[in-house]
């Protein structure tokens, strides 16, 4: 039984969420991953969406953060101002769970623009709540497919702040999940490879990273998806390769 890169990333991302945590879920892959986790090892995961939805129990994969299903199955829906000021800004969100177009060695995420801001090559959607989430969630986990464009030494535009140029915030980037491996951030706030998918070498990862990558002392292999994980993924329709 095989799965797609997208599906594998969702499973690895899901494993990083702990039961009972409050996770602010971004669109796309993070949404898939959070819903996988809630159906498996983290049934009490509190899914929060920046649309103001608190503790959703979506019966199927929500199509967007404004999906009517999220509202129907939520504990409550807050005005987004209350969510950002009274829950996010105050430290009550454990995990920011984000995607993006680019990430760099400090964990800075770009979802604003490829090329210069004033003369963009590609204009993207912009922050939404991502910059707020990356700034105020207790830790951030990012899911992003890996290639040299997406992993530059420095992103074209810092939308969601990572660790500062020197040092490490107590909050901020904690993990990055790609289709090659899993990364954390060392005590200097620098991204570090900690494990790889079966069949992926450190060299493969380095070749698709735009800077000399730090490598953990021991690199482990990411356990393959379990049958239960694959079942849930299929149920959520996330097994197929999709455009994202």
């Amino acid at each position, binding site marked *: 039984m095989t799965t797609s890169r997208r599906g594998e990333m969702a499973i690895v991302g899901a494993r990083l969420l702990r039961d009972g945590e409050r996770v602010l879920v971004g669109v796309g892959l993070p949404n898939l991953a959070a819903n996988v986790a809630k159906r498996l090892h983290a049934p009490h995961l509190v899914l929060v969406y920046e649309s103001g*939805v608190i503790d959703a129990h979506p019966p199927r994969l929500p199509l967007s953060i404004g999906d009517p299903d999220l509202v129907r199955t939520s504990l409550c*829906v807050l*005005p987004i101002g209350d969510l950002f000021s009274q829950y996010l800004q105050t430290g009550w969100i454990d995990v920011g769970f984000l995607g993006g177009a680019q990430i760099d060695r400090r964990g800075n995420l770009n979802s604003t623009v490829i090329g210069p801001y004033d003369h963009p090559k590609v204009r993207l959607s912009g*922050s*939404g*709540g991502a*910059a707020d989430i990356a700034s105020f969630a207790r830790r951030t986990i990012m899911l992003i497919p890996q290639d040299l464009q997406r992993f530059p030494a420095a992103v074209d535009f810092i939308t969601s702040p990572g660790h500062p140029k020197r040092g490490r915030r107590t909050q901020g980037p904690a993990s990055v999940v790609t289709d090659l491996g899993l990364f954390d951030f060392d005590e200097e706030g620098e991204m570090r490879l900690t494990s790889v998918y079966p069949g992926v070498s450190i060299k493969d990862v380095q070749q698709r990273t735009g800077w000399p990558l730090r490598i953990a002392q021991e690199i482990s292999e990411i356990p393959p998806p379990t049958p239960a994980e694959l079942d849930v993924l299929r149920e959520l329709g996330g097994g197929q390769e999709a455009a994202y």
Partner: protein
Amino acid sequence: MAELLTVHDAVARYVADDQVVYLAGFTHLIPFAFGHEIIRQRRRHLTLCRATPDLVYDQMIAAGVADRLVFSYAGNPGLGLLQVFRQAVQRGELEIEEYTHFELVARLSAGAAGLPFWPLRSLENDLTARRPRPRVRSPFGDEEVAVVPALRPDVTLVHAHCADEDGNVYAWGLLGEVKEAALAAHRILVSVEEIRPAASLRRERDHLLIPGFRVQSISVAPFGAHPSYVQGVYDRDTAFYTEWDRISRDPEATRKWLARFVDAVPDREAYLRLLPPDRLAALKEAAQVDN
């Protein structure tokens, strides 16, 4: 006190060239009927504000009503980018002023409270590097917070479930920044799915969105939020959001779509007649699940 006007008359009377305009709604309750009417009446040089521009602003930008966009997330929800917006920015044809969601809502909160600014914890990214948010030192300790300026639209346009004869407006489900955007505005224009008698709504006080004395006009516009949705009334037309992704990549297809679905129709009723009837019925049915 709110006046009962057609969508046409409300826009004709209260939306003028050069204004700062906010079409409210967060995925949910997007006032497409108003947006299309603004296009039909050929307003120009508007500053469009909205946390999530969504398709409605993509269409309005394509139609040439806007010089400027104040926003925080310009995506096609669940699908990716807003193609008209993207191209307009890439070509330098649209001036933009960009925030995070929290910052933009904070600007509205200040407007709604009649204050010149709103405080929030400061955040450092390339948006704040380009346009620094001023800091204010707390008089009660050493802390500094960032502040953003009030946003006070000339007009905020809202779509809601219903209103009563006195213009009291009711809505529920995702409300995003609707209330703040409305209360921050000098004028509030509302379209609703239906007018219901006040007596029947008095027990719905938890869904009261805006009291009638704050509202300039009420317009009846069934399906006024399509292809966006009204919780419990009709679902989001996801197929159209996907279709727009295709249409909007092609300026000619976009032009044709606007000509056919906006400019060639006199009003929302006529727009709805252009859609396959079973499509609207299906959206209604899908919304009838347990809420």
